[in-house]
């Protein structure tokens, strides 16, 4: 049962191969294959989850891939509760996204290719969560990066889309460099890449000290890139250029979850090395706060969600950095569902009005009841309102910061901002009067293929968190844990504060964007510099442009000039000298060397022209001479 878990990633891979090499001309069959593969994977994942519920494991199955003598690379499966949960989340979200895509991508000229890519994406992520060693996880990590590049740049006719694809690829590459350095440090220190063996070395103190901290920080670099943490978060908002279902997949279950998953998987390192853990936590909360504040003022519906994702990922990373394994992974799971729902609902809205700008929407709630309803459920969930799933996971995250006052304050501020911008989005989109009558008139509810996944995800956004209700004796915390299973106590004070913070955020949004009691414009005018700063996303893109891109251009210009004038000058000078020297040599060659050579030639030719008459070509002539020669020899003997 468990050792056959490789089937789960193998199914989407097979779907990809089938679509690319076989059925790509037939849209219905291609999408059917892809969806069948991922749904079968989902069923298998459920079976695995029940298996793992009985026996937490970890179960490990591997074979040697490359044998290097003293050590070897493995290909193997590692199945523990975290893997089981991730398999489930990825397959559910991917299934919903693919079914939703049937409607969303309807009529796209590269419909089959889209499903091939999505399947490949699912395969990469499923392989990643099943990996049992660093080398294998790195391979799938890069596959995830590749497929995200393909999908973000799916509409590559748009320059912004292809640019966004490149940006995502190159930015995450910067993180991956750190990742591979971390892997090499680990290999150097432990002589193995297997997770279990590395953790044993850490626990026995073989792998410790500065090396461990360095390895932890470098490995975290990979997660920073993939999970869009500060300072490599810039690619994620641009990734909105891809089709919206892809954004949902990237943001909820696959790409960005990979980074969080990695940190959770190797959490032993961050627990053993407190300084590395603190780096992780600080990066996480910084990202979270920064992204949430940017999200406050964005007008593009998908960008708001993108910054929301970055912010929530920061939450998870921070919780993991503080050692709260259960809290981080729990939030990863609940977030996957409600963020997928948010994106798919946003996609439904965009599908209806053909714009991303919230300022051109408004009042859509009347026309798109299911979309609006599910969007509100997801927003309540992400805002952490009792009893939706976001409440339980966010509560655990806030509880994990209890020993660190600064973290706790910032976390609560982020919670407030999250609630505010989510409901700003909801109110601007679905309530009030239409701000663009033309677009409003054309709006309509999306087809069933799109709304059914929304409803499934809405259900999960409400109830998925209930597995983590603290009063459950066999809840999430006794399933996915690090070290000893702990029973998360329910902190009424913390829960109360976070609920209050969330509600106040919603209230402020209600006043500003629904009632209009407080004018957003006046607030913006009052805090003009801050607003501008946030609106321009802290000028990160401009700063990176100034720090990295422009100097690179300048350096390139310089080297171009250097090339043109110095190198080429040298080359041309050398060429001129060579030319003169060649002319001199040519004269020498023609008159002296050639004279000698030709003289020899003429001599030989003259001699030959006389001697050749000996070669008559007549057999009897030769025979006569041979005969005469024989007689001569005989005679002279």
């Amino acid at each position, binding site marked *: 049962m468990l050792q056959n878990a490789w089937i789960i990633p193998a199914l989407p891979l097979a779907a990809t191969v089938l679509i690319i090499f076989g059925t790509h001309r037939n849209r219905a069959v291609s999408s059917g294959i892809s969806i069948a593969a991922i749904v079968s994977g989902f069923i298998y994942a459920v079976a695995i989850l029940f298996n793992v519920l009985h026996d937490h494991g970890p179960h490990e199955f591997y074979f040697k891939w490359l044998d290097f003598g003293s050590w070897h690379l493995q290909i193997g499966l590692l199945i523990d509760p975290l893997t089981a949960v991730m398999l489930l989340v990825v397959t559910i979200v991917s299934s919903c996204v693919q079914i939703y895509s049937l409607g969303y991508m309807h009529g796209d000229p590269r419909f089959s290719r889209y499903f091939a890519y999505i399947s490949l994406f699912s395969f990469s992520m499923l392989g990643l969560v099943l990996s049992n060693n660093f080398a294998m996880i790195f391979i799938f990590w890069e596959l995830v990066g590749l497929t995200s590049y393909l999908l973000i740049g799916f509409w590559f006719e748009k320059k912004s889309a292809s640019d966004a694809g490149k940006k995502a690829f190159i930015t995450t590459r910067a993180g991956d460099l750190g990742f591979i350095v971390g892997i090499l440090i680990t290999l150097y220190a432990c002589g193995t890449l297997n997770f279990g063996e590395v953790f044993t070395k850490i626990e026995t103190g073989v792998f410790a000290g500065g090396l461990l901290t360095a390895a932890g920080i470098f490995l975290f670099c990979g997660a920073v890139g993939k999970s869009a943490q500060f300072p490599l978060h810039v690619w994620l908002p641009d990734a909105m250029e891809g089709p919206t279902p892809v954004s949902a997949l990237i943001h909820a279950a696959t790409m960005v979850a990979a980074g969080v998953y990695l940190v959770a998987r190797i959490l032993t390192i961050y627990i053993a090395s407190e300084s590395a853990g603190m780096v992780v936590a600080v990066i996480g909360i910084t990202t979270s706060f920064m992204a949430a504040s940017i999200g406050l003022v964005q007008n593009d519906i998908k960008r708001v969600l993108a910054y929301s994702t970055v912010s929530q990922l920061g939450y998870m990373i921070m919780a993991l950095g503080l050692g709260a394994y259960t809290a981080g992974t729990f939030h990863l799971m609940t977030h996957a569902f409600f963020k997928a729902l948010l994106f798919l609902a946003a996609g439904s809205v965009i599908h209806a009005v053909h714009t991303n700008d919230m300022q051109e929407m408004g009042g859509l709630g009347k026309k798109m009841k299911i979309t609006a309803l599910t969007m509100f459920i997801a927003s309540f969930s992400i805002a952490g309102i009792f009893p939706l799933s976001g409440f339980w996971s966010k509560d655990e995250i806030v509880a994990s910061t209890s020993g660190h006052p600064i973290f706790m304050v910032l976390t609560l501020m982020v919670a407030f901002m999250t609630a505010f911008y989510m409901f700003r989005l909801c109110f601007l989109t679905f309530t009030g009067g239409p701000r663009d009558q033309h677009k409003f008139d054309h709006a309509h509810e999306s087809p069933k293929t799109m709304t059914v996944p929304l409803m499934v995800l809405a259900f999960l956004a409400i109830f998925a968190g209930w597995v983590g209700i603290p009063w459950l004796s066999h809840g999430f915390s006794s399933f996915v844990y690090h070290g000893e299973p702990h029973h998360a106590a329910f902190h009424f004070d913390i829960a109360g504060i976070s609920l209050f913070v969330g509600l106040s955020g919603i209230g402020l949004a209600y006043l500003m964007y629904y009632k209009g009691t407080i004018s957003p414009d006046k607030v913006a005018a009052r805090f003009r510099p801050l607003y501008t700063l946030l609106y321009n996303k802290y000028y990160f893109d401009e700063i990176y442009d100034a720090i990295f891109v422009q100097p690179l251009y300048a350096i390139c210009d310089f080297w171009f000039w250097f090339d043109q004038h110095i190198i080429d000058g040298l080359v041309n000078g050398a060429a001129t000298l060579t030319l003169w020297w060649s002319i001199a040599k040519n004269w020498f060659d023609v008159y002296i060397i050639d004279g000698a050579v030709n003289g020899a030639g003429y001599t030989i030719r003259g001699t030959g022209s006389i001697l050749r008459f000996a070669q008559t070509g*007549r057999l*009897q*002539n030769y025979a*006569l001479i041979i*005969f*005469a020669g024989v*007689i001569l020899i*005989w*005679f002279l003997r």
Partner: protein
Amino acid sequence: MTEISLTNLTFYILSFCIIAGGIFTVSSRNLFHSAVFLVFTLFSVAGMFVMLNAYLLAAIQVLIYVGAVAMLMIFGVMLTTRLADVRLRHVNEQSWPALAICGFFLAFLVYGLWDTPFTVSGVPMPADTAHALGTLLMTKYVLPFEVVSLLLLAALVGAVVIAKKD
């Protein structure tokens, strides 16, 4: 006339036939005449073999040379030469130097052979040379015998391969 003188006479007659036949063979303008003179010469050589008590060899000479090789030559002549053609020259331009060199060679040879004392054995030839030769071929010379049979086979196949039209 004693028996010795009869032997002498036979030898001289046969020698004359051989040499004259040879000279006509090489000098006749008509190639067919050359072939006929060649047959004549070969017959005379067979006679000379009889004089030398090599009866089997004489028979073989007649069978193979006169019967096979000469016939082959005549066939070759007929297949390749238009006998009616008037030939301007049947010898090439080096005939006079060749004649000089050959004359010199012959003179030198005769001078060398004229009174060279060879150690001649007095033992008479065995009466039944054919039987002795057959025994020798099957015992002492069996390997060359087999090799030469192989050579004949190769020559047969080779001749067919070379001469056949493509």
